[in-house]
Every structure is written in structure tokens, then in C-alpha cells.
């Protein structure tokens, strides 16, 4: 039975694997031997929804710049563990290890709590 299942898995066309509704989660711990991913690289994956550096303030998805470290960690752990229900964030959060969530928390806690679009990048601001 097991070999039958395996066989059918391997004969699935490539296309099917690309379009299937949902794949199994490989827990973040399986990647623990790899070098640590910096908080900035992790956190910059959030920008399409939460704005550059988490600094968008006029959309329904909330800003996360300047969020207190412990608040961010609790939120993300609750999303990850499905304690706090959400339509998207449960699936976003469950890929990260606790250590990664902590590094993201450090990154966002360090961002100025103001719209990035108001900053003059040329004149320095935070980049000085």
C-alpha cells in the first residue's frame, strides 16, 4: 500500500505539484542547521502587505514598524500556533521558528513608527 502511494506520488505530473491546493509544511526546525536568516531579510518579506519596513498607515493591513518586541512575538506565536484565528496570517506565521520570529521582532521594533513615504531618503533621515 505504502509503495503504491509512493508510486502515485512520483507519477504526478510536475504541473499538478505546482497547482495543488496545499502542500505539507516542512517545520522551520528542519532548517535549523542552515545559517540563520537575518531579521531584515525575514521582515522585508512582509512589505507587499504591510508596507516598506512595515510603515504603511492608511490601508486595512496594519503597520508593524515600531511594534514592541514582545507584542510582535506574542502575535506571531499566536498566529503560528493557531491560537489567534486569521484568514492569512496563520499560514504566513507557521513557517517561522521562534528564533526567527524574535529576529523579525527586533527588526520591526527598530523601525521608525511613521510612514516611510514621508521620509526624504536623500537628505538622510534614518539613513544618515
Amino acid at each position, binding site marked *: 500500500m505504502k509503495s503504491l502511494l509512493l508510486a502515485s506520488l512520483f507519477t504526478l*505530473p*510536475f*504541473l*499538478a*505539484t*505546482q*497547482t*495543488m*491546493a*496545499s*502542500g*505539507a*509544511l*516542512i517545520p*522551520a526546525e528542519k*532548517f535549523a542547521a*542552515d*545559517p*540563520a*536568516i*537575518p531579521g*531584515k*531579510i*525575514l521582515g*522585508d*518579506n512582509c*512589505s*507587499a*502587505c*504591510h*508596507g*516598506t*519596513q512595515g510603515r*504603511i498607515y492608511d*490601508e*486595512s*493591513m496594519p503597520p508593524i514598524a515600531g511594534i514592541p518586541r514582545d507584542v510582535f512575538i506574542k502575535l506571531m506565536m499566536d498566529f503560528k500556533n493557531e491560537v489567534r484565528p486569521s*484568514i*492569512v496570517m496563520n*499560514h*504566513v506565521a*507557521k*513557517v517561522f521558528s521562534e528564533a526567527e520570529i524574535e529576529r523579525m521582532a527586533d527588526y520591526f521594533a527598530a523601525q521608525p513608527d511613521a510612514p516611510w*513615504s514621508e521620509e*526624504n*531618503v*536623500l*537628505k*538622510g533621515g534614518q*539613513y*544618515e
Partner: protein
Amino acid sequence: MNNLSRRQLIKQLGAAGIATGLFGASKQAWSKTAPHVVIVGGGIGGASAAKYLRIIDKNVKITLIEPNKEYIFCPGSNEILNETATLEELTVNYETLKNRYAVNVITDWADDIDYTGKRVKTRNSGFVAYDKLIVSPGPDYKLDAVEGYNKALAEGDFPHAWKAGAQTTKLFDQMKSMPQGGTIAISSPPMPYRCPPAPYERASFMAEWLAHHNPTAKILILDSKDGFTFQKHYLDYWTKVRGYGTDNSMIEWVAAKDGGEVKQLDALNKTLITANGDKIKADVINIIPNHTAAKFAKDTGLSQGQEWVSIDPMTYQSRVDKDVYVVGDVTESSPMVKTGYLASNHAKVVVQAIVDEFNGKAPSQPLYTNNCVALAGDDYGMSITDTFRVQNGKIVKQYGHQSTELDNPALHYVRASLAKNWQRAFRRDIFA
């Protein structure tokens, strides 16, 4: 040395550019030793690279080479077809990159790379020397994969509209002027192509418009695949609101296994010929073309004779030259799909790797997400959450999830709002 000097740039760009601080912070001219990062292509990948590079490095010179003065966002462009967006809303330009992010924008075609001399050959602006080059030219379309289809037809009466712009408007106008009860045939290509759910979103939005203005019209999706992203949602939505599966269905989908693959266009008779020889005459024909790497990637040898450009997924460095990085749809990044979301995330990893190298540091471990959205109607949204890691030089799909819930109108509505929110926020993330 053919390095584009500050003086040459002043000549090229004019005093107005300098007055607005075009090439450098007001307080500082670029030092003679400032490294020069050149970016070819001002789409989502290239523009993301320019902005995110400036955020992490104030001292590097950045030049973007892009032939168009404006860019029309593809994400959100199906909305032209149900009149919930206009091309104007989707159009951005390079002024913010110039003025706030001190990016020198050259409006020109990049034609070639001189790897030995480390410079890009432009069509009209001479050579541009680089220390690091980021290439983001997107895909090209293999129109002739459907026999009889070609560029002249695409720009004429058979728009593919797979790059937002005049063809999108043309397709909408064709739908508008179609007789009552007319037929639209959409040919959906094999993977890989940009934004996998988009052909079905397109059909859905056309159906939404037709339901109000031409309720007896039909949409026929002829597919080169046997399945598609968000299929469960689309089929459920079409069943509930468009009569899918009945004789009166507004939408019909023909899978490849049922002979859906389009082989030939008979333009004169407005007819598509499928793999099993069926001839389908339609009032509007929309062939979404097969994709391949952009011509620039092929002409410069970056694709090494392959369909797509092979990269090192740790940094998106090309396999051809260590100072050249390639991002976005043009890359061989499977099991990632081709989306703007991923292109922007490739770009962020590239610029971090480049700055790390300038600072004598090893590249950081990357992570790439594709947390994206699509719509089945103005009141029905869906979301996808994909995460990719790199292990032993290979891209590993850590997780892939598509929203599953059916029969929950409130949730579908919230997800539709989320999708629209995402489109606005993403445009601003890249271009504001």
C-alpha cells in the same frame, strides 16, 4: 574607462535633474570610489532592486536602464475588464525613484553586456559601466507556439493583453462591441507563465461584466493544462453564479486532457483549432501566449541556451558572471512560480548580497515568500501563502497553501478587500 561620469550625466539629463537632486544627495556628490550598481529593466524586479538598494546603502551609485517612461502594473490589470480599475490607476513612473531614492534613470534600451569591460551597451546612450549589474527583463512571449499567431495580430485584432497596456484596453473594447450572445475564447498556456491564476481571474471578470451587459454571451477557456491555481474556488464560484456545469453556463473550461490545448489560429475566420482538431469560431479571441526568457537574457548569453536563466538561489547571482545578478520571471526558480511578489523578493536578496560583498561579508541566508492574492469576482477573493528556503544550493518549497473555504460569502468578501488592499500596498512598496 567608459564609466558614466557625473559631468556626462549632467549633460545627458540636464540641469533640471540636478536641481531636484537627481544624482545624489544634496549634501554629497558621489565619491570617485563609490561603487556603481546598474539595473537593466524597470519592472517590479528592477524597481524593487533600485529602491531597496538605496534604503540599505546611501553611498552607492544606482543607475536604472529602462526604455519606457512609465510602467503599467500587471497585477490588478484584469480589473480593466470588469471596470473596477483604470489603466491610469495602474500606471506609475520613475520620478520617485529619481527624486527620493537618488536613482539615475536612463530611458533607453539595453542591448548587450560587455562582461570583460563590465559595461552595458545601450541603444542610444552609449556604454554604461558597472561594478555590479542586476538584470530584470521579464519574459518574452512565444507567440508562434500557436501556429498562425504573431506580433502583428497581437497588436491588431488578437490582443494577448498579457502585459498591461493598450492591448488590455483593446480586449475590453472587443468584449464591449461583441454582439449579444457572442463568444469569447481564451487560450490558457502551459506552465510556466506569470501569475498562474490570472487567466481564470480574467475569465471571471469578463463574465462579471458580461452578466450585466451581455448576459447570453459565452466564455470558453481552452486550456493547455489539466488543472490550475485556485481551481476549487473558481469552479465553485462559476457553478454558483455563472451556471457552470449546466447547458446555460456562461463559462466553459476545457482541460488539456479533453482536447483543450490550442494549436492553431485561423485569423481570417476568427477560429481556433485545438489539439483534437476542433474548430472553434469566436467573436473575441484571447490567446495568452507561452513564455520564455526575455530576448535580452538570450542575446547576452545569460540563459546559456536554455529557456530560462539559471541562477544561484542563495543570491540570484548568474551562472555566467559573478558580477551579474538576475531576478524575476526571467529566472529558472522552480518550484517558485512566476509572480511580481517573488520578483520583488528576489531583488531584496540580491541588493543585500551586493552590499554584503561591498562590505566584505558573506551573503546572508535568504527566504522567499509568495503571499499573494487573486479574485473570482469583485466580491470574492482568494489568497495563497508559499514559502521557499534554500538548502544545499537548491530551492525548497517549505510550505504552500491556497485558501480553502467555500460557502462563506463574508469571508470571500473580506478576502476580496484584502486582495484590493494588497494591490495598492504592493504598488506603493515598489514605486513610492
